[in-house]
Protein backbone atom coordinates (compact mmCIF):
# COMPACT_ATOMS: atom_id res chain seq x y z
CA UNK A 1 0.00 0.00 0.00
CA UNK A 2 1.50 3.29 -1.11
CA UNK A 3 -0.30 6.46 -0.05
CA UNK A 4 -3.66 4.76 -0.10
CA UNK A 5 -3.33 3.40 -3.61
CA UNK A 6 -3.90 -0.27 -4.04
CA UNK A 7 -1.06 -2.23 -5.52
CA UNK A 8 -2.36 -5.17 -7.49
CA UNK A 9 -0.06 -7.96 -6.45
CA UNK A 10 -1.88 -10.47 -8.59
CA UNK A 11 -3.69 -9.74 -11.79
CA UNK A 12 -5.55 -12.13 -14.03
CA UNK A 13 -4.13 -15.22 -12.38
CA UNK A 14 -6.52 -18.08 -13.01
CA UNK A 15 -6.03 -21.81 -12.60
CA UNK A 16 -7.81 -24.94 -11.43
CA UNK A 17 -6.48 -27.43 -8.95
CA UNK A 18 -8.07 -30.84 -9.42
CA UNK A 19 -8.23 -33.12 -6.43
CA UNK A 20 -5.13 -35.29 -6.06
CA UNK A 21 -2.86 -32.83 -7.85
CA UNK A 22 0.66 -31.95 -6.66
CA UNK A 23 1.49 -28.40 -7.76
CA UNK A 24 4.62 -26.34 -7.20
CA UNK A 25 4.43 -22.55 -7.41
CA UNK A 26 7.63 -20.75 -8.35
CA UNK A 27 8.68 -17.21 -9.09
CA UNK A 28 11.20 -14.56 -8.04
CA UNK A 29 10.54 -12.42 -4.98
CA UNK A 30 7.93 -9.74 -5.68
CA UNK A 31 6.21 -11.94 -8.21
CA UNK A 32 3.09 -12.25 -6.06
CA UNK A 33 3.93 -15.68 -4.68
CA UNK A 34 3.21 -14.73 -1.09
CA UNK A 35 -0.02 -13.03 -2.00
CA UNK A 36 -1.20 -16.10 -3.87
CA UNK A 37 -0.21 -18.24 -0.91
CA UNK A 38 -2.18 -16.04 1.49
CA UNK A 39 -5.21 -16.23 -0.76
CA UNK A 40 -4.97 -20.00 -1.16
CA UNK A 41 -4.50 -20.35 2.60
CA UNK A 42 -7.63 -18.29 3.28
CA UNK A 43 -5.53 -15.87 5.29
CA UNK A 44 -6.63 -13.09 2.98
CA UNK A 45 -9.51 -12.37 0.59
CA UNK A 46 -9.08 -11.19 -2.99
CA UNK A 47 -10.14 -7.53 -3.46
CA UNK A 48 -11.77 -8.67 -6.69
CA UNK A 49 -12.15 -12.00 -8.39
CA UNK A 50 -13.00 -15.33 -6.85
CA UNK A 51 -11.36 -18.19 -5.04
CA UNK A 52 -13.64 -21.17 -5.09
CA UNK A 53 -12.76 -23.83 -2.57
CA UNK A 54 -14.84 -26.93 -3.19
CA UNK A 55 -17.66 -24.71 -4.44
CA UNK A 56 -17.53 -22.04 -1.69
CA UNK A 57 -16.38 -18.54 -2.64
CA UNK A 58 -13.70 -17.52 -0.16
CA UNK A 59 -14.00 -13.88 -1.27
CA UNK A 60 -17.43 -13.72 0.36
CA UNK A 61 -16.42 -15.16 3.71
CA UNK A 62 -16.12 -13.11 6.88
CA UNK A 63 -13.24 -13.34 9.30
CA UNK A 64 -14.73 -16.14 11.39
CA UNK A 65 -15.68 -18.19 8.35
CA UNK A 66 -12.14 -17.81 7.00
CA UNK A 67 -10.80 -19.06 10.31
CA UNK A 68 -13.12 -22.03 10.28
CA UNK A 69 -12.13 -22.85 6.72
CA UNK A 70 -8.46 -22.79 7.73
CA UNK A 71 -9.19 -24.99 10.70
CA UNK A 72 -11.20 -27.61 8.84
CA UNK A 73 -10.25 -27.60 5.17
CA UNK A 74 -6.63 -26.52 4.79
CA UNK A 75 -3.41 -28.09 6.08
CA UNK A 76 -0.49 -25.69 6.52
CA UNK A 77 3.20 -26.61 6.35
CA UNK A 78 5.59 -23.68 6.84
CA UNK A 79 9.24 -23.16 6.11
CA UNK A 80 10.02 -22.49 9.78
CA UNK A 81 7.72 -25.33 11.00
CA UNK A 82 5.72 -22.92 13.21
CA UNK A 83 5.03 -25.31 16.02
CA UNK A 84 3.80 -23.91 19.35
CA UNK A 85 6.73 -24.07 21.77
CA UNK A 86 4.66 -24.67 24.92
CA UNK A 87 2.91 -27.73 23.50
CA UNK A 88 4.02 -31.32 23.12
CA UNK A 89 4.16 -33.16 19.80
CA UNK A 90 0.62 -34.60 20.10
CA UNK A 91 -0.79 -31.34 21.33
CA UNK A 92 0.74 -29.51 18.40
CA UNK A 93 -0.82 -32.01 16.01
CA UNK A 94 -4.20 -31.43 17.67
CA UNK A 95 -4.25 -27.63 17.36
CA UNK A 96 -6.38 -27.45 14.14
CA UNK A 97 -8.87 -29.90 15.66
CA UNK A 98 -9.11 -27.74 18.73
CA UNK A 99 -9.87 -24.59 16.77
CA UNK A 100 -12.18 -26.45 14.39
CA UNK A 101 -14.15 -27.75 17.35
CA UNK A 102 -13.44 -31.33 16.34
CA UNK A 103 -11.43 -32.51 19.30
CA UNK A 104 -12.79 -35.83 20.55
CA UNK A 105 -11.65 -39.38 21.26
CA UNK A 106 -11.78 -40.41 17.59
CA UNK A 107 -9.78 -37.46 16.30
CA UNK A 108 -7.35 -37.85 19.18
CA UNK A 109 -6.70 -41.41 18.05
CA UNK A 110 -6.13 -40.01 14.58
CA UNK A 111 -3.49 -37.60 15.92
CA UNK A 112 -1.62 -40.53 17.43
CA UNK A 113 -1.92 -42.44 14.18
CA UNK A 114 -0.46 -39.51 12.26
CA UNK A 115 2.40 -39.17 14.72
CA UNK A 116 3.07 -42.81 14.08
CA UNK A 117 2.88 -42.32 10.33
CA UNK A 118 5.52 -39.58 10.37
CA UNK A 119 7.70 -41.77 12.59
CA UNK A 120 7.46 -39.79 15.85
CA UNK A 121 5.54 -42.28 17.98
CA UNK A 122 8.40 -42.38 20.49
CA UNK A 123 8.47 -38.59 20.93
CA UNK A 124 4.82 -37.82 21.62
CA UNK A 125 5.47 -35.88 24.83
CA UNK A 126 8.49 -33.94 23.55
CA UNK A 127 8.47 -30.20 23.04
CA UNK A 128 9.44 -28.76 19.65
CA UNK A 129 12.71 -27.43 21.08
CA UNK A 130 13.73 -31.03 21.86
CA UNK A 131 13.34 -32.12 18.23
CA UNK A 132 15.56 -31.73 15.15
CA UNK A 133 14.43 -29.58 12.21
CA UNK A 134 13.38 -32.62 10.17
CA UNK A 135 11.40 -34.01 13.09
CA UNK A 136 9.69 -30.68 13.64
CA UNK A 137 8.69 -30.51 10.01
CA UNK A 138 7.22 -34.01 10.26
CA UNK A 139 5.16 -32.90 13.23
CA UNK A 140 3.99 -29.98 11.08
CA UNK A 141 3.02 -32.36 8.29
CA UNK A 142 1.12 -34.56 10.72
CA UNK A 143 -0.60 -31.42 11.98
CA UNK A 144 -1.54 -30.41 8.42
CA UNK A 145 -3.25 -33.76 7.94
CA UNK A 146 -5.13 -34.03 11.20
CA UNK A 147 -8.25 -32.20 9.97
CA UNK A 148 -8.39 -34.31 6.77
CA UNK A 149 -8.00 -31.16 4.62
CA UNK A 150 -9.03 -30.42 1.04
CA UNK A 151 -5.41 -29.64 0.30
CA UNK A 152 -2.05 -29.14 1.95
CA UNK A 153 -0.44 -25.75 1.49
CA UNK A 154 3.31 -26.03 1.93
CA UNK A 155 5.36 -22.85 1.95
CA UNK A 156 9.02 -23.72 1.22
CA UNK A 157 8.72 -26.81 3.43
CA UNK A 158 12.36 -27.80 2.88
CA UNK A 159 13.87 -24.31 2.95
CA UNK A 160 15.42 -24.77 6.40
CA UNK A 161 16.53 -28.38 6.02
CA UNK A 162 19.74 -30.09 4.90
CA UNK A 163 19.67 -32.14 1.71
CA UNK A 164 19.21 -35.51 3.39
CA UNK A 165 16.25 -34.33 5.45
CA UNK A 166 14.88 -32.47 2.44
CA UNK A 167 14.78 -35.76 0.62
CA UNK A 168 12.95 -37.46 3.47
CA UNK A 169 10.34 -34.71 3.68
CA UNK A 170 9.78 -34.65 -0.08
CA UNK A 171 9.41 -38.41 -0.06
CA UNK A 172 6.80 -38.08 2.65
CA UNK A 173 4.91 -35.46 0.62
CA UNK A 174 5.07 -37.63 -2.48
CA UNK A 175 3.77 -40.58 -0.56
CA UNK A 176 0.87 -38.47 0.67
CA UNK A 177 0.14 -37.36 -2.90
CA UNK A 178 0.24 -40.99 -4.02
CA UNK A 179 -2.37 -41.69 -1.37
CA UNK A 180 -4.58 -39.04 -2.99
CA UNK A 181 -3.75 -35.87 -1.06
CA UNK A 182 -3.83 -32.58 -2.97
CA UNK A 183 -0.66 -30.59 -2.31
CA UNK A 184 0.25 -27.04 -3.30
CA UNK A 185 3.88 -26.24 -2.58
CA UNK A 186 5.68 -22.92 -2.93
CA UNK A 187 9.38 -23.32 -3.65
CA UNK A 188 12.21 -21.52 -5.35
CA UNK A 189 14.33 -24.63 -5.95
CA UNK A 190 13.84 -26.05 -9.46
CA UNK A 191 14.92 -29.57 -8.44
CA UNK A 192 12.27 -29.59 -5.71
CA UNK A 193 9.69 -28.39 -8.23
CA UNK A 194 10.83 -31.21 -10.54
CA UNK A 195 9.28 -33.74 -8.19
CA UNK A 196 5.76 -32.32 -8.53
CA UNK A 197 3.23 -33.10 -11.23
CA UNK A 198 2.75 -29.50 -12.31
CA UNK A 199 4.61 -26.21 -11.92
CA UNK A 200 3.11 -22.72 -12.01
CA UNK A 201 5.50 -19.82 -12.47
CA UNK A 202 4.48 -16.29 -11.52
CA UNK A 203 6.11 -13.12 -12.73
CA UNK A 204 5.08 -9.55 -11.82
CA UNK A 205 1.76 -10.73 -10.51
CA UNK A 206 0.91 -12.59 -13.67
CA UNK A 207 0.85 -16.21 -14.59
CA UNK A 208 3.97 -16.84 -16.70
CA UNK A 209 3.68 -20.57 -17.24
CA UNK A 210 1.60 -23.51 -16.08
CA UNK A 211 3.23 -26.76 -17.13
CA UNK A 212 2.26 -30.29 -16.39
CA UNK A 213 4.92 -32.98 -16.52
Amino acid at each position, binding site marked *: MLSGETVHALRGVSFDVPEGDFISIMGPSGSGKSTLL*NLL*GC*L*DRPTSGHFLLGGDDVARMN*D*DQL*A*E*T*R*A*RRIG*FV*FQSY*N*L*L*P*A*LSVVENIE*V*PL*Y*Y*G*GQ*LNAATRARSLELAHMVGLESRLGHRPAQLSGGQQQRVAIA*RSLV*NDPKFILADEPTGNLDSKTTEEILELLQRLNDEGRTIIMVTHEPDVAELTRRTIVLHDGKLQSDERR
Partner: protein
Amino acid sequence: MWWRTIQLSIKSVLLHPLRSALTILGIFIGVASVIWLLAMGEGIGKAAQEQIASLGALNIIVRTVKPSSDDVEDGSYGLTRSDYVRLVATIPTITKALPIRILAQEFRYQTRSFEGRLVGCTPDYADVTRLKLDRGRFLSDADLDRERNYCVLAHESAERLFPSGNAIGKDIMVDEQFYTVVGVMQPRAPSAGIGGSLAAEDYSRDVYVPITTLWRRIGDMIVVTKPGQFQRDWVEVTQITLQVAERNDVLRTADLVRTTIENEHSFSDYGVTVPLELLQQAETTRLMFILFLGLIAAISLVVGGIGIMNIMLATVTERTHEIGIRRALGAKRQDITRQFLIESTVLSLAGGLSGVIGGLFCRPLTLFMRDQLERWFPDQMATLPDLIRTMEPQLVSWSIPLAFVISLAVGILFGVYPALRAAQLDPIEALRHA
Protein backbone atom coordinates in the same frame (compact mmCIF):
# COMPACT_ATOMS: atom_id res chain seq x y z
CA MET B 1 -13.04 -26.58 25.04
CA TRP B 2 -12.84 -24.34 28.09
CA TRP B 3 -10.90 -26.81 30.13
CA ARG B 4 -8.46 -27.23 27.29
CA THR B 5 -8.02 -23.45 27.04
CA ILE B 6 -7.41 -23.21 30.76
CA GLN B 7 -4.81 -25.98 30.56
CA LEU B 8 -3.09 -24.17 27.72
CA SER B 9 -3.10 -20.92 29.69
CA ILE B 10 -1.56 -22.54 32.73
CA LYS B 11 1.12 -24.01 30.49
CA SER B 12 2.06 -20.69 28.97
CA VAL B 13 1.99 -19.03 32.40
CA LEU B 14 4.44 -21.67 33.58
CA LEU B 15 6.63 -21.05 30.56
CA HIS B 16 7.91 -17.87 32.29
CA PRO B 17 7.91 -18.82 35.97
CA LEU B 18 9.72 -15.76 37.34
CA ARG B 19 7.74 -13.25 35.36
CA SER B 20 4.46 -14.92 36.27
CA ALA B 21 5.48 -15.15 39.93
CA LEU B 22 6.19 -11.42 40.06
CA THR B 23 2.86 -10.62 38.47
CA ILE B 24 1.09 -12.92 40.90
CA LEU B 25 2.97 -11.24 43.74
CA GLY B 26 1.39 -7.92 42.79
CA ILE B 27 -2.11 -9.36 43.12
CA PHE B 28 -1.11 -11.30 46.22
CA ILE B 29 -0.10 -8.10 47.96
CA GLY B 30 -3.33 -6.42 46.90
CA VAL B 31 -5.60 -9.22 48.08
CA ALA B 32 -3.71 -9.88 51.29
CA SER B 33 -3.71 -6.21 52.17
CA VAL B 34 -7.47 -5.97 51.62
CA ILE B 35 -7.96 -8.80 54.10
CA TRP B 36 -5.33 -7.52 56.53
CA LEU B 37 -6.43 -3.92 56.59
CA LEU B 38 -10.07 -4.88 57.01
CA ALA B 39 -9.12 -7.29 59.80
CA MET B 40 -7.17 -4.58 61.59
CA GLY B 41 -9.95 -2.06 61.17
CA GLU B 42 -12.37 -4.61 62.54
CA GLY B 43 -10.03 -5.44 65.43
CA ILE B 44 -9.70 -1.81 66.48
CA GLY B 45 -13.41 -1.19 66.04
CA LYS B 46 -14.33 -4.29 68.03
CA ALA B 47 -12.05 -3.30 70.89
CA ALA B 48 -13.63 0.16 71.06
CA GLN B 49 -17.10 -1.34 70.95
CA GLU B 50 -16.35 -3.84 73.66
CA GLN B 51 -15.08 -1.06 75.89
CA ILE B 52 -18.26 0.89 75.38
CA ALA B 53 -20.42 -2.19 75.75
CA SER B 54 -18.76 -2.81 79.12
CA LEU B 55 -20.56 0.30 80.30
CA GLY B 56 -23.79 -1.50 79.52
CA ALA B 57 -25.75 -0.88 76.35
CA LEU B 58 -29.01 -0.78 78.29
CA ASN B 59 -27.73 1.79 80.78
CA ILE B 60 -28.16 5.52 81.02
CA ILE B 61 -25.67 7.14 83.30
CA VAL B 62 -26.40 10.47 84.98
CA ARG B 63 -23.56 11.89 86.99
CA THR B 64 -22.76 14.92 89.00
CA VAL B 65 -20.33 17.25 87.32
CA LYS B 66 -18.69 19.96 89.38
CA PRO B 67 -19.73 23.25 87.77
CA SER B 68 -17.52 26.28 87.38
CA SER B 69 -17.23 28.01 90.74
CA ASP B 70 -19.17 31.15 89.66
CA ASP B 71 -22.42 29.23 89.42
CA VAL B 72 -22.22 27.65 92.85
CA GLU B 73 -23.27 30.00 95.65
CA ASP B 74 -23.50 27.83 98.73
CA GLY B 75 -21.21 24.97 97.65
CA SER B 76 -24.07 22.63 97.00
CA TYR B 77 -24.50 21.18 93.53
CA GLY B 78 -25.13 17.97 91.63
CA LEU B 79 -27.76 15.33 91.58
CA THR B 80 -30.09 15.10 94.53
CA ARG B 81 -32.08 12.42 96.30
CA SER B 82 -35.22 14.00 94.91
CA ASP B 83 -33.85 13.77 91.35
CA TYR B 84 -33.54 10.07 91.95
CA VAL B 85 -37.02 9.73 93.32
CA ARG B 86 -38.49 11.79 90.51
CA LEU B 87 -36.75 9.78 87.76
CA VAL B 88 -37.93 6.49 89.19
CA ALA B 89 -41.46 7.74 89.74
CA THR B 90 -42.04 9.48 86.38
CA ILE B 91 -40.32 7.29 83.77
CA PRO B 92 -41.98 3.91 83.48
CA THR B 93 -39.41 2.34 81.12
CA ILE B 94 -36.76 2.44 83.82
CA THR B 95 -36.45 -1.03 85.32
CA LYS B 96 -33.53 -0.43 87.61
CA ALA B 97 -32.28 2.75 89.17
CA LEU B 98 -29.12 2.87 91.10
CA PRO B 99 -27.99 5.89 93.08
CA ILE B 100 -24.32 5.99 93.93
CA ARG B 101 -22.32 8.25 96.15
CA ILE B 102 -18.56 8.06 95.83
CA LEU B 103 -16.05 9.60 98.22
CA ALA B 104 -12.29 9.41 98.46
CA GLN B 105 -11.52 7.83 101.81
CA GLU B 106 -8.83 6.26 103.86
CA PHE B 107 -9.52 2.70 105.03
CA ARG B 108 -7.80 1.06 107.96
CA TYR B 109 -7.57 -2.33 109.55
CA GLN B 110 -5.28 -2.52 112.55
CA THR B 111 -1.97 -1.13 111.28
CA ARG B 112 -2.73 -1.34 107.59
CA SER B 113 -4.34 1.43 105.60
CA PHE B 114 -4.87 2.62 102.03
CA GLU B 115 -6.60 5.34 100.08
CA GLY B 116 -9.54 4.21 97.99
CA ARG B 117 -13.09 4.94 96.99
CA LEU B 118 -15.94 4.64 99.40
CA VAL B 119 -18.95 3.74 97.28
CA GLY B 120 -22.42 4.08 98.72
CA CYS B 121 -24.73 1.99 96.60
CA THR B 122 -27.69 -0.40 96.46
CA PRO B 123 -27.80 -4.21 96.03
CA ASP B 124 -28.23 -3.76 92.22
CA TYR B 125 -24.81 -2.20 91.94
CA ALA B 126 -22.92 -5.49 91.52
CA ASP B 127 -25.28 -6.55 88.75
CA VAL B 128 -25.28 -3.32 86.80
CA THR B 129 -21.52 -2.87 86.89
CA ARG B 130 -20.99 -6.60 86.28
CA LEU B 131 -18.94 -7.09 89.41
CA LYS B 132 -18.80 -10.69 90.58
CA LEU B 133 -18.74 -11.90 94.13
CA ASP B 134 -15.70 -13.83 95.26
CA ARG B 135 -16.61 -14.69 98.86
CA GLY B 136 -19.42 -13.83 101.30
CA ARG B 137 -22.36 -11.82 100.01
CA PHE B 138 -23.09 -8.43 98.48
CA LEU B 139 -25.18 -5.76 100.21
CA SER B 140 -28.87 -6.60 100.67
CA ASP B 141 -32.09 -4.61 100.76
CA ALA B 142 -32.27 -5.24 104.46
CA ASP B 143 -28.82 -3.67 104.91
CA LEU B 144 -30.12 -0.55 103.19
CA ASP B 145 -33.41 -0.42 105.08
CA ARG B 146 -31.67 -0.69 108.43
CA GLU B 147 -28.73 1.51 107.44
CA ARG B 148 -26.36 -1.13 108.67
CA ASN B 149 -22.66 -0.51 108.83
CA TYR B 150 -21.73 -3.43 106.64
CA CYS B 151 -19.28 -3.23 103.79
CA VAL B 152 -18.09 -5.27 100.80
CA LEU B 153 -14.47 -5.02 99.65
CA ALA B 154 -13.24 -4.88 96.08
CA HIS B 155 -10.53 -7.38 95.23
CA GLU B 156 -7.52 -5.12 95.68
CA SER B 157 -8.96 -3.46 98.78
CA ALA B 158 -9.25 -6.87 100.41
CA GLU B 159 -5.69 -7.75 99.45
CA ARG B 160 -4.34 -4.53 100.91
CA LEU B 161 -6.13 -4.78 104.24
CA PHE B 162 -6.05 -8.55 104.60
CA PRO B 163 -3.04 -9.74 102.62
CA SER B 164 -3.00 -13.18 104.17
CA GLY B 165 -6.37 -13.88 105.61
CA ASN B 166 -10.09 -14.03 105.39
CA ALA B 167 -11.64 -10.57 105.49
CA ILE B 168 -15.20 -11.70 106.15
CA GLY B 169 -16.47 -10.75 109.60
CA LYS B 170 -13.61 -8.34 110.33
CA ASP B 171 -14.31 -4.72 111.20
CA ILE B 172 -12.50 -2.06 109.15
CA MET B 173 -12.36 1.60 110.08
CA VAL B 174 -13.78 4.24 107.74
CA ASP B 175 -13.99 7.89 108.83
CA GLU B 176 -13.65 7.00 112.53
CA GLN B 177 -16.39 4.39 112.29
CA PHE B 178 -16.36 0.63 112.07
CA TYR B 179 -17.85 -1.38 109.22
CA THR B 180 -18.14 -5.14 109.19
CA VAL B 181 -16.91 -6.90 106.02
CA VAL B 182 -19.64 -9.19 104.64
CA GLY B 183 -18.19 -9.95 101.17
CA VAL B 184 -15.26 -9.69 98.78
CA MET B 185 -15.53 -9.15 95.03
CA GLN B 186 -13.60 -10.66 92.14
CA PRO B 187 -11.24 -8.40 90.21
CA ARG B 188 -12.61 -6.53 87.18
CA ALA B 189 -10.82 -4.63 84.43
CA PRO B 190 -11.38 -0.86 84.48
CA SER B 191 -14.19 0.32 82.25
CA ALA B 192 -13.54 2.72 79.42
CA GLY B 193 -13.34 6.46 79.56
CA ILE B 194 -14.93 7.51 76.30
CA GLY B 195 -15.36 10.82 74.57
CA GLY B 196 -14.32 12.82 77.65
CA SER B 197 -17.82 12.53 79.09
CA LEU B 198 -16.88 9.74 81.38
CA ALA B 199 -13.63 9.10 83.14
CA ALA B 200 -12.31 5.60 83.04
CA GLU B 201 -13.57 3.91 86.16
CA ASP B 202 -11.27 1.77 88.23
CA TYR B 203 -13.11 -0.62 90.50
CA SER B 204 -10.10 -2.21 92.10
CA ARG B 205 -9.77 -0.11 95.30
CA ASP B 206 -13.43 0.23 96.21
CA VAL B 207 -15.27 -0.36 99.45
CA TYR B 208 -19.02 -0.74 99.03
CA VAL B 209 -21.45 0.30 101.78
CA PRO B 210 -25.24 0.80 101.76
CA ILE B 211 -25.91 4.27 100.37
CA THR B 212 -28.40 4.95 103.20
CA THR B 213 -25.70 4.24 105.75
CA LEU B 214 -23.36 6.61 103.95
CA TRP B 215 -25.94 9.39 103.87
CA ARG B 216 -26.68 8.95 107.57
CA ARG B 217 -23.17 8.49 108.93
CA ILE B 218 -20.98 10.55 106.59
CA GLY B 219 -23.42 13.00 105.07
CA ASP B 220 -23.25 15.11 101.93
CA MET B 221 -20.28 17.29 102.74
CA ILE B 222 -17.04 17.05 100.80
CA VAL B 223 -14.10 18.87 102.25
CA VAL B 224 -11.60 19.90 99.61
CA THR B 225 -8.26 21.11 100.88
CA LYS B 226 -5.80 22.53 98.45
CA PRO B 227 -2.78 24.67 99.35
CA GLY B 228 -4.15 28.02 100.53
CA GLN B 229 -7.74 26.98 100.06
CA PHE B 230 -10.35 25.29 102.12
CA GLN B 231 -13.64 24.50 100.50
CA ARG B 232 -16.75 22.66 101.53
CA ASP B 233 -19.08 21.19 98.91
CA TRP B 234 -22.39 19.46 99.36
CA VAL B 235 -23.23 16.64 97.00
CA GLU B 236 -26.09 14.21 97.63
CA VAL B 237 -25.67 11.74 94.78
CA THR B 238 -22.56 11.23 92.64
CA GLN B 239 -24.17 9.17 89.98
CA ILE B 240 -27.47 7.54 89.07
CA THR B 241 -27.24 4.54 86.78
CA LEU B 242 -30.55 3.77 85.11
CA GLN B 243 -31.34 0.59 83.28
CA VAL B 244 -34.14 -0.13 80.82
CA ALA B 245 -35.38 -3.52 79.67
CA GLU B 246 -35.38 -3.03 75.89
CA ARG B 247 -32.64 -1.72 73.66
CA ASN B 248 -35.26 0.19 71.66
CA ASP B 249 -36.27 2.15 74.77
CA VAL B 250 -32.78 3.43 75.55
CA LEU B 251 -32.67 6.56 73.42
CA ARG B 252 -36.23 7.63 74.17
CA THR B 253 -35.73 7.12 77.88
CA ALA B 254 -32.47 9.06 77.72
CA ASP B 255 -34.35 12.06 76.29
CA LEU B 256 -36.92 11.88 79.08
CA VAL B 257 -34.15 11.69 81.65
CA ARG B 258 -32.48 14.77 80.19
CA THR B 259 -35.64 16.86 80.24
CA THR B 260 -36.63 15.69 83.72
CA ILE B 261 -33.32 16.69 85.22
CA GLU B 262 -33.02 19.86 83.17
CA ASN B 263 -36.23 21.15 84.77
CA GLU B 264 -34.80 20.83 88.24
CA HIS B 265 -31.33 22.22 87.70
CA SER B 266 -30.69 25.87 86.98
CA PHE B 267 -27.11 25.34 85.88
CA SER B 268 -25.15 22.56 84.34
CA ASP B 269 -24.00 20.49 87.29
CA TYR B 270 -24.70 17.09 85.80
CA GLY B 271 -23.93 15.05 82.71
CA VAL B 272 -25.86 12.31 80.94
CA THR B 273 -23.93 9.52 79.24
CA VAL B 274 -25.69 6.99 77.03
CA PRO B 275 -23.36 4.10 76.15
CA LEU B 276 -25.70 3.08 73.32
CA GLU B 277 -25.24 6.49 71.67
CA LEU B 278 -21.49 6.12 71.99
CA LEU B 279 -21.81 2.61 70.62
CA GLN B 280 -23.61 3.92 67.57
CA GLN B 281 -21.03 6.67 67.10
CA ALA B 282 -18.27 4.11 67.41
CA GLU B 283 -20.01 1.98 64.80
CA THR B 284 -20.09 4.90 62.38
CA THR B 285 -16.45 5.65 63.05
CA ARG B 286 -15.61 2.01 62.56
CA LEU B 287 -17.37 1.91 59.19
CA MET B 288 -15.56 5.07 58.06
CA PHE B 289 -12.30 3.54 59.18
CA ILE B 290 -12.96 0.31 57.32
CA LEU B 291 -13.96 2.22 54.22
CA PHE B 292 -10.75 4.21 54.39
CA LEU B 293 -8.56 1.15 54.85
CA GLY B 294 -10.49 -0.65 52.13
CA LEU B 295 -9.74 2.22 49.79
CA ILE B 296 -6.01 1.97 50.46
CA ALA B 297 -6.15 -1.76 49.88
CA ALA B 298 -8.15 -1.28 46.69
CA ILE B 299 -5.42 1.00 45.39
CA SER B 300 -2.85 -1.73 45.89
CA LEU B 301 -5.12 -4.13 44.02
CA VAL B 302 -5.34 -1.71 41.13
CA VAL B 303 -1.56 -1.47 41.11
CA GLY B 304 -1.47 -5.27 40.93
CA GLY B 305 -3.93 -5.10 38.04
CA ILE B 306 -1.70 -2.66 36.19
CA GLY B 307 1.11 -5.18 36.69
CA ILE B 308 -1.03 -7.82 35.00
CA MET B 309 -1.87 -5.52 32.11
CA ASN B 310 1.78 -4.63 31.69
CA ILE B 311 2.83 -8.26 31.53
CA MET B 312 0.01 -9.23 29.23
CA LEU B 313 0.85 -6.41 26.81
CA ALA B 314 4.46 -7.52 26.79
CA THR B 315 3.30 -11.10 26.29
CA VAL B 316 1.13 -10.16 23.35
CA THR B 317 4.02 -8.38 21.65
CA GLU B 318 6.35 -11.22 22.41
CA ARG B 319 3.94 -13.87 21.19
CA THR B 320 2.78 -12.12 18.04
CA HIS B 321 4.27 -14.93 15.97
CA GLU B 322 2.47 -17.54 18.06
CA ILE B 323 -0.79 -15.64 17.57
CA GLY B 324 -0.11 -15.70 13.82
CA ILE B 325 0.39 -19.48 13.91
CA ARG B 326 -2.79 -20.01 15.86
CA ARG B 327 -4.76 -17.79 13.54
CA ALA B 328 -3.37 -19.62 10.49
CA LEU B 329 -4.35 -22.94 12.03
CA GLY B 330 -7.93 -21.77 12.41
CA ALA B 331 -8.20 -19.72 15.62
CA LYS B 332 -10.93 -17.09 15.41
CA ARG B 333 -10.42 -13.64 16.90
CA GLN B 334 -12.56 -14.65 19.85
CA ASP B 335 -10.38 -17.72 20.44
CA ILE B 336 -7.34 -15.48 20.77
CA THR B 337 -9.22 -13.04 23.01
CA ARG B 338 -10.34 -15.89 25.21
CA GLN B 339 -6.89 -17.38 25.44
CA PHE B 340 -5.25 -14.18 26.63
CA LEU B 341 -8.16 -13.28 28.88
CA ILE B 342 -7.98 -16.67 30.54
CA GLU B 343 -4.25 -16.30 30.90
CA SER B 344 -4.59 -12.99 32.73
CA THR B 345 -7.39 -14.48 34.82
CA VAL B 346 -5.20 -17.44 35.73
CA LEU B 347 -2.53 -15.03 36.88
CA SER B 348 -4.93 -12.98 38.97
CA LEU B 349 -6.65 -16.07 40.36
CA ALA B 350 -3.30 -17.45 41.48
CA GLY B 351 -2.62 -14.09 43.10
CA GLY B 352 -6.10 -14.04 44.63
CA LEU B 353 -5.85 -17.54 46.07
CA SER B 354 -2.39 -17.02 47.52
CA GLY B 355 -3.53 -13.63 48.80
CA VAL B 356 -6.46 -15.22 50.64
CA ILE B 357 -4.09 -17.74 52.20
CA GLY B 358 -1.76 -14.91 53.15
CA GLY B 359 -4.76 -13.07 54.58
CA LEU B 360 -5.59 -16.00 56.83
CA PHE B 361 -2.18 -15.63 58.46
CA CYS B 362 -3.00 -12.05 59.40
CA ARG B 363 -3.65 -12.71 63.09
CA PRO B 364 -0.67 -14.93 63.96
CA LEU B 365 1.69 -12.73 61.93
CA THR B 366 0.46 -9.50 63.48
CA LEU B 367 0.77 -10.94 66.97
CA PHE B 368 4.26 -12.22 66.13
CA MET B 369 5.30 -8.85 64.74
CA ARG B 370 3.98 -7.08 67.80
CA ASP B 371 5.93 -9.42 70.08
CA GLN B 372 9.08 -8.73 68.11
CA LEU B 373 8.51 -4.98 68.16
CA GLU B 374 7.88 -5.07 71.88
CA ARG B 375 11.08 -7.01 72.40
CA TRP B 376 13.31 -4.73 70.33
CA PHE B 377 11.64 -1.33 70.70
CA PRO B 378 9.78 -1.44 74.03
CA ASP B 379 10.01 2.34 74.58
CA GLN B 380 8.50 3.30 71.24
CA MET B 381 5.78 0.70 71.62
CA ALA B 382 4.83 2.06 75.02
CA THR B 383 3.99 5.43 73.50
CA LEU B 384 1.37 3.93 71.19
CA PRO B 385 -2.28 4.21 72.23
CA ASP B 386 -3.60 1.14 74.02
CA LEU B 387 -6.22 0.59 71.36
CA ILE B 388 -3.50 0.03 68.76
CA ARG B 389 -0.98 -1.68 71.01
CA THR B 390 -3.41 -4.33 72.20
CA MET B 391 -5.29 -4.56 68.90
CA GLU B 392 -6.16 -8.07 67.81
CA PRO B 393 -6.95 -8.34 64.09
CA GLN B 394 -10.38 -9.85 63.50
CA LEU B 395 -10.82 -11.53 60.13
CA VAL B 396 -13.91 -10.07 58.51
CA SER B 397 -15.63 -13.06 56.96
CA TRP B 398 -16.88 -11.22 53.90
CA SER B 399 -13.45 -9.74 53.15
CA ILE B 400 -12.24 -13.09 51.78
CA PRO B 401 -14.83 -13.54 49.04
CA LEU B 402 -14.67 -9.80 48.41
CA ALA B 403 -10.91 -9.72 47.92
CA PHE B 404 -11.11 -12.83 45.79
CA VAL B 405 -13.84 -11.50 43.54
CA ILE B 406 -12.06 -8.17 43.18
CA SER B 407 -8.84 -9.90 42.19
CA LEU B 408 -10.73 -11.87 39.59
CA ALA B 409 -12.37 -8.72 38.29
CA VAL B 410 -8.99 -6.98 38.16
CA GLY B 411 -7.54 -9.85 36.13
CA ILE B 412 -10.37 -9.72 33.63
CA LEU B 413 -10.57 -5.94 33.50
CA PHE B 414 -6.88 -5.41 32.93
CA GLY B 415 -6.66 -8.45 30.66
CA VAL B 416 -9.32 -7.27 28.23
CA TYR B 417 -7.27 -4.63 26.45
CA PRO B 418 -4.19 -6.81 25.78
CA ALA B 419 -6.47 -9.68 24.73
CA LEU B 420 -8.38 -7.50 22.27
CA ARG B 421 -5.12 -6.16 20.93
CA ALA B 422 -3.89 -9.69 20.37
CA ALA B 423 -7.08 -10.61 18.55
CA GLN B 424 -6.92 -7.56 16.27
CA LEU B 425 -3.52 -8.55 14.91
CA ASP B 426 -3.56 -9.34 11.20
CA PRO B 427 -2.74 -13.06 10.85
CA ILE B 428 -0.42 -12.50 7.87
CA GLU B 429 1.51 -9.74 9.62
CA ALA B 430 1.64 -11.78 12.80
CA LEU B 431 2.97 -14.85 11.00
CA ARG B 432 5.71 -12.79 9.40
CA HIS B 433 6.69 -11.36 12.81
CA ALA B 434 9.91 -13.01 13.94
